[in-house]
């Protein structure tokens, strides 16, 4: 009997060893997520890159044309303008959003009456659906019905019947969409940095004050270093969101006037979906990848190189 049951024991294979090995357990737990990421992130990205090397059109497959789409785009004025404006849009909006957001976070970190209420109010621009706020800005910057124009007329800076061509003039339109993006993006940065500020121990400020540190010195040598990791995260997200912005532009200007507010994302949609040239649209979208990667690299390797991440003291 005993010898019989011993004989029935299955042979231990490499596969069964892997299945029960504690070192592999973590890997098995990661498999579902890896599959998810592979299908929903990596595969579309690879497919997009492949499409960018074809002349695929809507409704029919394309043939492989190598880098022809990219060659065309390198000499395409609209694409170059869109790339330039995307970089300017991202840089200006991100810097202003960071500066104002940080200032707002520091203000909100102080004790004040109705603190919770004011913090909730600050979040409103972020809560409002993008399209809704974009439509509101479309009205705000309407040439004839703009509230800014109306206010300027009332204040006597503009004559009655004199208008500002907010969205009809290429430069003013660019400024207008950047303004709208800043308005919408500040709360995200302010509230996230506020969360970071609240983790800074008050005892550090007390110690600095006792040492005679000024307000600026307290910020520069206490707040800023401790906030750096969260700044890195929040600015990475902010730059990525701004660089890939679509809704705001599409609802406000559709890339106009004369493609002046076209971002790479909107131009990709214009060429790929509206124009039906999927290959070219995919090439524009793929051309965004190096910029996005660069933004991530700068953020992670530049802002987060401090040794404390590895449990050591700072440089």
């Amino acid at each position, binding site marked *: 009997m005993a010898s019989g049951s011993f004989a029935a024991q299955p042979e231990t294979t490499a596969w069964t060893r892997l299945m029960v090995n504690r070192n592999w357990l973590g890997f098995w737990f990661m498999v579902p997520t890896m599959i998810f990421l592979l299908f929903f992130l990596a595969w579309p990205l690879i497919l997009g890159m492949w499409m960018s090397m074809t002349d695929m059109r809507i*409704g029919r497959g394309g043939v492989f044309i190598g880098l022809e789409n990219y060659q065309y785009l390198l000499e395409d004025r609209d694409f170059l303008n869109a790339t330039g404006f995307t970089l300017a849009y991202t840089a200006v909006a991100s810097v202003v959003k960071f500066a104002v957001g940080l200032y707002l976070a520091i203000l909100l970190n102080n004790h004040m009456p109705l603190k919770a209420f004011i913090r909730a109010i600050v979040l409103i621009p972020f809560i409002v659906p993008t399209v809704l706020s974009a439509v509101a800005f479309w009205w705000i910057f309407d040439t*004839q019905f703009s509230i800014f124009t109306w206010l300027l007329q009332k204040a006597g800076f503009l004559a009655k019947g004199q208008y500002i061509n907010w969205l009809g003039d290429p430069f003013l339109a660019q400024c207008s969409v950047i303004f709208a993006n800043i308005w919408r993006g500040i709360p995200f940065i302010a509230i996230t940095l506020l969360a970071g500020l609240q983790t800074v121990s008050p005892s550090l400020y007390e110690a600095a004050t006792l040492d005679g540190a000024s307000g600026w010195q307290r910020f520069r040598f206490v707040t800023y270093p401790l906030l750096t990791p969260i700044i890195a995260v929040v600015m990475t997200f902010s730059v990525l969101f701004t660089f890939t912005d679509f809704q705001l532009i599409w609802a406000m200007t559709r890339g106009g006037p004369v493609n002046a507010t076209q971002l790479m994302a909107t131009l990709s949609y214009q060429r790929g979906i509206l124009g039906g040239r999927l290959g070219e649209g995919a090439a524009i979208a793929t051309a965004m990848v190096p910029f996005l990667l660069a933004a991530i690299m700068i953020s992670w390797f530049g802002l987060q190189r401090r040794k404390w991440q590895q449990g050591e003291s700072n440089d």
Partner: protein
Amino acid sequence: MTKPTRRSALKGLAGVAGAGALVGSGMTDWAKAWAQASPFKPEAGATLNVMRWRRFVVAEDEAFNKIVAAFTAATGVRVTVTSESFDDMQPKASVAANTGTGPDIFWSLYSTPHLFPNRCVDVTDVADYLGKKYGGWVPVAEAYGKLGNKWIAIPAAINGGYLNYRISQIKAAGFNEVPQTTAGFLELCKALKAKNTPAGFPLGRASGDGNSYAYWLLWSHNGAQVDENSKVIIRSPETEAALNYAKSLYDTFIQGTAAWNDASNNRLFLSGELGLTANGISIYAAANASSDPKQKEIAADMDHAYWPIGPAGKPTEIQLCFPMMAMTYTKFPNACKAFMTYMLEAEQFNPWLEAAAGYLTHTLNAFDNNPVWTKDPKNTVFRDASKRSLVAGHRGKLDEKAATAMADFIVVDMFASFCTGRESAAGAMQLAERQLQRIYR
């Protein structure tokens, strides 16, 4: 199939309720008789999802839904209608065509079916049936509906876009009517600006009004994007003349036209800020239907005129075609054909045309006598929209390349970039030429 949404469910229910209300009515009796005799028998258990452009004239939409309900009552085919804005129709249709899933029928704009002709059900039998019964199709309908000898869409109607003007402002500027030559028209615009009542025509991303204006500018000066052999000829002295003319006009316009979409001029005209623009009859229809005395006053003080004729010496308008196409992925192609046929039968189409109050122009010759064109003289101009219109592509073929050029706003952007001072005439033409050469390669 489209994902059911609250709105579509409500519309579906409304359709069923409407169908119920129609049971026993004359419309349904006729519809049932029609269903018996129709050459197109819907598949058993067929249901249809129809996506159409969002209405501009309420009564037109109501008439459309009534016909849909009668069709459901007669054939048992449940039809769910959803609507999207002009600008969203083509992307939605394109994505559906590419992914092979979405509404069974798109009632879309311009040359959308030519963007993906092999994804459209062959509806030659429907077009032949309707053409024989109703005096034949106007040439522009054939151009939009056919690819070679095959009909890929049924051009159900044309939306005429003509000059909308305030009678009092034209008179104050010293004109009794809108001059019918481009030179005279420029004089009118200058006079309107001098009176501080400037005109305005869209140079922005306005699929309907923007393309209408830009192609009229180009064609009226004998310019064209391609010749008969699809060779790109946009860079020409004729185009340069058109650009210079456009700039002269632009200098007289109200500010902001480079940012206009399709709704901008409607809004400004109805607010009283604008006295001359190009649009469908929807401004007049909205002002007429309003209970606001100010709007009524605008309706009484406005009229319509044809586009002026330029050096080309003939009408050079492009009107907005509304082609209805069934997609090849549909499980119910016969139900699609039955639906399209039913909508254009005289018993439905005549009241629908009347309800549209001039917003829709027929493409089948037999509907010339519909009373909508004569009962209000301000409507009459729009009767000729489908007969005067040229097609996208003009001298070249109406194919996916012409459709792409229009969808990409190449001609609109050419005029806009020159008029706003972003490009010289040579630069604007060169940019357009390069883009067209890529499309027409």
